[in-house]
């Protein structure tokens, strides 16, 4: 297992290199000019040109790419064109809100979605199943920002229960931290809950048809034990896979959610950087996200061995 994990970690290096080349090339050919944004509307073309030269953006592709890779090899993500701050420190400033949002969403999702899927499978074909699946279709269909606005209106403006926006670091207390994350996590979690509830239901339905479940019933085992101990464990592989894939959804969804709830996370940093063509920041974030994806995939593969002892690497 350790050798496998090491092999997988090492195999991320060429993946990251390809991602780096792809991202850099994409940004190089993309239209837009950060120098024009910096110079502002009143600047002359000569001013824009001089700013571009100072930023090194007038250099040929290979020179720019070479110097970026050289810095990267020294664990330096570069400096933001706009803020003049190191990209690493900008990411560090923003990572806590995004991780917090993702973690709360993930916990909320698993707590809600898995039992819903199990119950829907158990009560398959009944009105309970239909209600849960209708909720899943709704959750999957309504955009995150619509859910966000509705939640903010009801729980913040109408009933004054939770704040509309912002983020409080965990270091300032658990409740201040959590209260800023409840509405965004519910908004972001809707799609995710719907997805996992549906997958859980489908996986459980298949497992519940198995002979050993019938045997368990014949032995007089309680329904809860059958569902959550015997069936759920055997249905876990596809659920774990979707939870992992869903992290991609969470990162994408975080971009919108962070904008709607004014959370200063990586999602908003990404949008801001793209709109301004802040190349070093975009490159740094994309590399980070790629690394997270690779890491999550590795963790999923390792988790398989825990839920299904037959799987060995």
């Amino acid at each position: 297992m350790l050798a496998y994990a090491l092999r997988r970690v090492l195999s991320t290096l060429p993946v990251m290199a390809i991602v780096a080349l792809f991202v850099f090339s994409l940004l190089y050919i993309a239209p837009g000019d950060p120098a024009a944004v910096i110079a502002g509307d009143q600047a002359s073309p000569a001013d824009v040109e001089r700013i571009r030269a100072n930023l090194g953006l007038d250099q040929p592709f290979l020179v720019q790419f070479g110097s970026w890779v050289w810095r990267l090899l020294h664990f330096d993500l570069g400096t933001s064109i706009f803020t003049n701050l190191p990209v690493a420190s900008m990411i560090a400033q923003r990572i806590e809100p995004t991780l917090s949002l993702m973690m709360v969403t993930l916990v909320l999702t698993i707590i809600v979605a898995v039992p819903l899927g199990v119950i829907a499978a158990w009560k398959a074909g009944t009105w309970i199943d239909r209600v849960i699946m209708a909720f899943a279709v709704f959750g999957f269909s309504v955009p995150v920002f619509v859910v966000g606005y509705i939640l903010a209106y009801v729980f913040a403006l109408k009933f004054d229960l939770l704040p509309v926006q912002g983020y409080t670091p965990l270091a300032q207390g658990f409740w201040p931290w959590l209260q800023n994350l409840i509405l965004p996590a519910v908004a972001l979690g809707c799609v995710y809950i719907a997805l996992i509830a549906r997958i859980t239901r489908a996986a459980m339905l298949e497992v519940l048809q198995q002979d050993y479940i019938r045997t368990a019933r014949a032995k007089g085992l309680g329904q809860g034990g059958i569902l959550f101990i015997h069936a759920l464990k055997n249905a876990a592989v596809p659920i774990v896979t979707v939870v992992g894939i869903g992290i991609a959804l969470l990162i994408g969804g975080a971009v919108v959610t962070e904008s709607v709830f004014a959370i200063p996370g990586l999602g908003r940093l990404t949008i801001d950087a793209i709109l301004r063509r802040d190349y070093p920041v975009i490159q740094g974030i994309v590399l980070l996200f790629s690394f997270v994806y690779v890491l999550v995939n590795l963790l999923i593969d390792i988790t398989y061995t825990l839920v299904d002892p037959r799987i060995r690497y």
Partner: protein
Amino acid sequence: MDRRTVLKGLAGAGGLALTGIAAPAIAQGANARTLRFVPQANLANFDPIWGTQYVVRNAAAMVWDTLYGIDDKFVPQRQMVESEEVSSDGLTWTFKLRPGLKFHDGEPVLAKDVVASLTRWSARDPMGLMLKAIQNELTAVDDTTFKWVLKQPYPKMLFALGKGNAPCAFIMPERIAQTDPFKQMSEYIGSGPFKFVKGEWVPGAKAVFEKFADYVPRDEKPVWLAGGKKVLVDRVEWVIMPDPATAAAALQNGEVDWWENPITDLVPVLKGNKNIGVDIGDPLGNVGSFRMNHLHAPFNNVKARQAILMALSQEDYMRALVGDDNALWKPLPGFFTPDTPLYTEAGGEILKGKRDFAAAKKLLEEAGYKGEPITCVVAQDQPITKAFGDVTADLLKKLGMNVDFVATDWGTVGARRAQKTPPAQGGWHMFHTWHAGADCINPAAYTALRANGDKAWFGWPTSEKVETEITNWFNAKSLDEEKTVAARINKAALDDVVFAPTGFFLGYTAWRKNVSGVTKGPIPLFWGVSKTA
């Protein structure tokens, strides 16, 4: 005790049991001393000479002081300067700094700091460049006196030093001002009424300014950028909110105190809230612009440009932008900001009255237009340009033009508009933008009105008449003379169609009623603003 407090208590108790981390109590007094402000845009950089975006200028005006400041009559008043003297030939200006000026690091403001700051500023600012071109020397005479010797008189000297248009002539310590004007500085030390708290700056999310205890305000009443800048709060927090609906909800919920520019659609909701005040923010508003490329056919022919003016309905553009709120727009048959001294409608008949499509089509024909695609580059991520672009597409179609509508984002427009190549090779025929009314009160900072061909703003218009009159304005010695010249500039710019003005529009600002002292001005003014709990 409200519901949130109860919930906070219950959940806080639970959280405490779980984590052992206590939620800090927020003192009422501290809350009342902190003003939370939602600015128009993200403060992505903080060098007001290197980056000239309005949001940078607005934040910079809190941190850096200027030698002069314009008041609401557009007259430059002394700010850091105690006195000035100009020689009888108008060539030598001698300025003396007022006593007690101090930078945020405790160092006194000296004449050498001013000289370095003006040198950096004059490399980037249009008026500064003019001064630099006629400069003999700019020197510090002693610690509090500096001298600017010119080769020819420059009657607009005080306006140049006090104007609010970006880049403003902000004064910085010499070591910082020695930074290349085309490179970003990394220290944000000023001598203005607020200190910038760099440690709390999260670009894209938050910027914090603290009251500078050692700032000595002037005795005069504050008026715009002039007068005594007395700070009545301890701290101003800029909270960046990209989503207007969130900003509106946060203001209603009391999570922020002042929102610089609420969008028109949400203003009725804010006006309906008894805790919120809403009024026009910047009385100088904005001038909408439809910019044509003078280098390429058909708009290299003045008749094609005049055809656009003849058919263009400013009301259509303004309604697309502000809806039915008539308080927010005015027709603008000219280029200068309405209700300012140089405003004129001379030559503006072409933009007034019923739109004449038949005559416009005839002019297009005379200009040789034969249905070639017209590349209209429209930024969809800016509500203003998106609205203008939709109206223009409709207008061009009505004129029988073949529209190549390039829907893109502002970043791309910013790069593409700099291309002089033919539209089919990555260039363009037209794009939209807008200019702050403060930049359009006179020709000083009105880069978009210049018509000096290759050196002009995007579109590169050429008009000898316009350029001659702009030079005459710079040399004008009285307001009456300036007004006469402005009328001639307006007419010449309309005759040659430097660009097509799409109307004058204003925006609201909104604040919670426990905040007082919010005044109308060309930028958000934080001095004189106070807050109760």
